[in-house]
């Protein structure tokens, strides 16, 4: 079955308890439209794999508010006070992973590796219960691949073969997550014909993508508006 262009059926068909990766860093490059569809579908007990947990009023925060999320696998959840409250009350589970290890574990899943040794987290709680090994005089900790059932990613441009191109810092975890899930659903700001992206500039080749669709009404919130006066 080739690339599909309508996400509705696949997202509606996600079962309760599924593990879903969601690209983005903070509010930058997040799959707003697929999150909205998942909110409508209302699945429960989801595990969300995402660098952050959104903010109280947007992004993954909406799914948390809606009681759909049982567990987050993230690197930093500091921007979401609702999540914080649920965590204190024991109503949500959070696994925290160092950001580089998080990215690398996702890549390992997409790349068919059984795991890897990283220097990150050696001697910290992150290494508790894990194998450590000295290799060429340096200590490393063993980390396993991190798979998912679905990946929701967001790209600036997509073509009808599923190739994706990300502008500026919107690539972040989107490209690597597209590799690591059984099914990858990509929303794009602009959907073009095959060949509309320069072949050397494709960040995510279409073979990693199952559904590509044009998103509507991207809100693209800015989390921290920092600017200078023009004359500085």
């Amino acid at each position, binding site marked *: 079955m080739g690339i599909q262009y309508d996400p509705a059926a696949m997202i509606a068909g996600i079962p309760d308890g599924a593990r879903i990766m969601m690209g983005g860093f903070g509010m930058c490059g997040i799959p707003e439209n697929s999150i909205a569809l998942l909110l409508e579908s209302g699945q429960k007990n989801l595990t969300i794999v995402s660098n952050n947990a959104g903010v109280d009023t947007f992004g993954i925060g909406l799914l948390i508010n809606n009681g759909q999320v049982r567990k987050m696998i993230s690197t930093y959840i500091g921007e979401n006070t609702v999540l914080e409250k649920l965590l204190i009350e024991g109503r949500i589970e959070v696994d925290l992973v160092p*950001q580089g290890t998080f990215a690398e574990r996702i890549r390992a899943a997409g790349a068919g590796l059984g795991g890897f040794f990283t220097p990150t987290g050696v001697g910290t709680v992150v290494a508790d219960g894990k194998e450590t090994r000295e290799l060429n005089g340096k200590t490393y900790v063993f980390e396993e691949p991190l798979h998912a059932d679905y990946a929701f990613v967001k790209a600036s441009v997509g073509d009808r073969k599923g190739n994706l191109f990300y502008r500026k*810092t919107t690539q972040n975890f989107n490209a*690597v997550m597209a590799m690591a899930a059984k099914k990858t659903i990509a929303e794009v700001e602009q959907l073009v014909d095959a060949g509309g992206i320069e072949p050397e500039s494709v960040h995510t080749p279409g073979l990693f993508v199952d559904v590509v669709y044009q998103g509507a009404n991207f809100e693209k919130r*800015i989390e921290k508006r920092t600017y200078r006066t023009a004359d500085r």
Partner: protein
Amino acid sequence: MKSGSKKERIAQRIARELRDGFYVNLGIGIPTMVADYIPDGMDITLHSENGMLGIGPYPTEGAMNPDLINAGKETISETPGSSYFGSDLSFAMVRGGHIDLSILGGMQVSETGDLANWMVPGAVVKGMGGAMDLVAGSRRVVVAMMHTSKDGSPKILPECTLPLTGVGVVTMIVTDLAVIEVTKAGLLLTEVAPDTTVDEVREKTGASLRIGDVREMRFAS
């Protein structure tokens, strides 16, 4: 003595650790301020772990772009020769020793260069973000922090009491009072601020300090 807050002074001192051609990662807080003190004409490329090399100054208000943020989620700008990439390559750079210098905030540093800076005692755990990778992988790790806690208790200790970010990872500590290098023989005091003394630094430091050829702290401007 330079004007400006103590935190600015820390940033100004750390700026003197920059070298031409360095690729540098700046953490949130005091480290971010180092960008304001890069010496004129020095080629420094700033890395942002969310997937960018070549961070420029904050944009003008009209130029803010939700697609262009730093790891602190602030809107930023690009410079000529910037590049963008995914998080996997970004942390390959970090772990692979391609970042010359990382500057991070600290809550505690031990006398063997252990760093604790991700779990605030008594608060909900928010996550380590990229800090553990940055300290494990960068060639040099400079910690920027106030010399003591607000209650005056020392943050430089024989051993960290808070959960660690990394073991034996810190190269240098720069505080409002002193510059301390982490050496194989322990902590070496090399500079003290103009408005303090070696004795005061020693008193406010929980770990034992070797006293080198101590100079007065100087600051980039």
